């Protein structure tokens, strides 16, 4: 067993490297990912080692990245596309939704689309407009796509490799504000399945669900709640589509209460779907309605206001209080 302490960013870098070593058909495409190593340095050093045919600095054209990835996938390649920031995925949205997501069904399975779309997502870095978005619901709503959101270095390291090896197109969401946070990664271990949620803190009073950057926030809230004698169970969903809610149902049947946390606006966000499913499955166990904590239904604000826009420890605890108040 070989355990290393890695940041999420470095874990992704090593995961990409290993995926490229394992399969010569894997190639990376994106803006500034070659010499520069990406604006977040996730692909640092990879072009030097794998060449510019496999680590491709593309023209500045996101639809072009995804559209050519489709053709490369048809030719047997496994393109890993980096979208530089969440807000820049929309020029590629047409290709993702009308082509990448549908070609497997259109072709009755003759044309698999093993494409990974890496997107640094979410806010909290003091950025200008279009650099802090949480677009996961658009993709989770689209049949044919799968959506993963990692929260730890270990999941980043293993998840990117699993996503690349997977036969279906995957939107791989990276919590950009957590890129520099460290954790233990067993680089020779056996990873958990990609499409599985995970209980990351046991508790009895309220079930709190999160994914990506909000997992840490939820854990901080659980710690604070514990100091006040309240026991929160925190589940890292890890996969946004398909959702793995069996562990959630088990938890909610015990706690009777459920709070879903994400940065994305609450209206028709993942929390809405989860609330509906939890209500269907756990109706007789619920002591309170499923509550959602998320962004407001506004455009993502200027950075001086983002701390008030984003869910934080206090807003999670506020929702926990409201849940317990029913």
């Amino acid at each position, binding site marked *: 067993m070989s355990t290393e302490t890695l940041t999420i960013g470095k874990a992704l870098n090593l995961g990409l490297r290993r995926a490229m070593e394992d399969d010569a058909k894997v190639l990376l495409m994106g803006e500034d990912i070659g010499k520069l190593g990406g604006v977040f340095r996730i692909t640092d050093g990879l072009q030097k080692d794998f060449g510019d045919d496999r680590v491709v600095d593309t*023209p500045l054209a996101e639809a*072009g990245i995804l*559209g050519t990835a489709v053709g490369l996938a048809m030719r047997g390649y496994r393109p890993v596309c980096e979208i530089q920031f969440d807000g820049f995925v929309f*020029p590629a949205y047409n290709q993702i939704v009308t082509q990448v997501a549908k070609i497997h069904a259109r072709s009755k399975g003759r044309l698999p689309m093993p494409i990974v779309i890496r997107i640094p997502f979410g806010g909290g870095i003091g950025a200008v407009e279009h650099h802090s978005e949480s677009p996961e619901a658009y993709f989770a709503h689209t049949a044919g796509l799968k959506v993963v959101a990692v929260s730890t270095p270990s999941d980043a390291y293993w998840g990117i490799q699993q996503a690349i090896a997977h036969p279906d197109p995957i939107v791989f969401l990276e919590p950009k504000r957590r890129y520099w946070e460290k954790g233990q990664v067993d680089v020779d271990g056996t990873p958990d399945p990609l499409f599985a949620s995970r209980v990351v803190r046991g508790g009895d009073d309220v079930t709190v669900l999160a994914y990506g950057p909000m997992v840490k926030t939820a854990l901080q809230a659980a710690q604070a709640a514990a100091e006040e004698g309240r026991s929160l169970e925190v589940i890292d969903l890890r996969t946004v589509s398909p959702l793995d809610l069996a562990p959630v149902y088990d938890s909610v049947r015990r706690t009777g209460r459920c709070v879903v946390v994400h940065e994305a606006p609450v209206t028709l966000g993942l929390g809405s779907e989860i609330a509906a499913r939890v209500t269907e499955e756990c109706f007789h166990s619920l002591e309170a309605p499923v509550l959602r904590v998320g962004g407001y239904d506004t455009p993502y604000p200027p950075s001086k206001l983002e701390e008030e826009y984003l869910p934080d420890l206090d807003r999670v605890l506020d929702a926990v209080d409201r849940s317990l108040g029913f």
Partner: protein
Amino acid sequence: MSTLSQTTEVVDPVPGADAPHLPGQPDLVQLLTPEGERVEHPDYSLDVSDEELRQLYRDLALVRRWDVEATALQRQGELGIWASLLGQEAAQVGAGRALAADDMAFPTYREHGVAWTRGVDPLHVMSLFRGVDQGGWDPVATGFNLYTVVIGAQTLHATGYAMGLQRDSAESATLAFLGDGATSQGEVNEALIWAATFSAPVVFFCQNNQYAISVPIERQSRVPLYQRAAGFGFPGVRVDGNDVLAVLAVTRAALAAAREGQGPTFIEAFTYRMGAHTTSDDPTRYRLASELEEWKLRDPIARLKAHLSRSGIADAAFFAGIEAEGDELAARIRRGTLEMADPAGTEIFDHVYAEQTPELVRQREEFVAYHASFEGEQ
């Protein structure tokens, strides 16, 4: 007979070019005049045997017969819709016959003539327009991708596939089909940029049929479309799209250049959509009957027939034989379309993913159980 096609100062060598909305058409490559006279071009020669000429005629005639039958079937309620290729047979057959077996074509939704040249069973195209599936042919085996309905999206797929060919050191190329309207799409412009930047072995084959449904070409471009290529840094050529020989020669040359590593070419096949955009369209609302009449004089099939007849390459018996073969084909298409089984409802779940999700398994079971609940009812 006209020698206009041999000079680059030609103003109006093609039918319709003097229509009110069309500017002069310079630099048109033509090897067969509208009257059926074989002419030479300084840059494009074509060696075709008499047998090949007869086969090209057969392709054109059978594709048109298929198209006529499909339109009739739609009118009789047997197809949901049909996108007719009437008038564009030469552009499609010429381009399709220029492809090598290992090349890959990326069609729009109107390339029935190219499908024919790739050996796609017409019934696999009919099943799409009947609503049975999204196209039943095997894109890998035929070298002919599935139809792409979102305008221009396939040009990027063709470019990416060509980048794959480069990485595989394959001596093949891709042929990306698009229309005049598609040239306004951002994705098409991205494809041209990518193809140029990576010198990808892709040929862009634009059938300028003068209309994007109802909107004429002037609303898409202030310059002749083939001239756009210069701005992207690769050759553009305008070919008489109703001249199957010129299309074949120009496309062959462009594909050969692509395979040899010389990068992309943009071909503008100057043609005319003689029918409606689809069976849901009414072209009398946006164009004059006189314009159509002018283009009918330059029909792509009539001109090859005139050439074959006049030169003695084909006789009346040959043409009668093709007509009979066309009728047989039409009958087979009609019968096959009418006999096409409706798909099973559960099929909608079966290919969404390569690795099925638990949620879709659940929804499929629910679907089956729901429908089973009606069993035994009237």
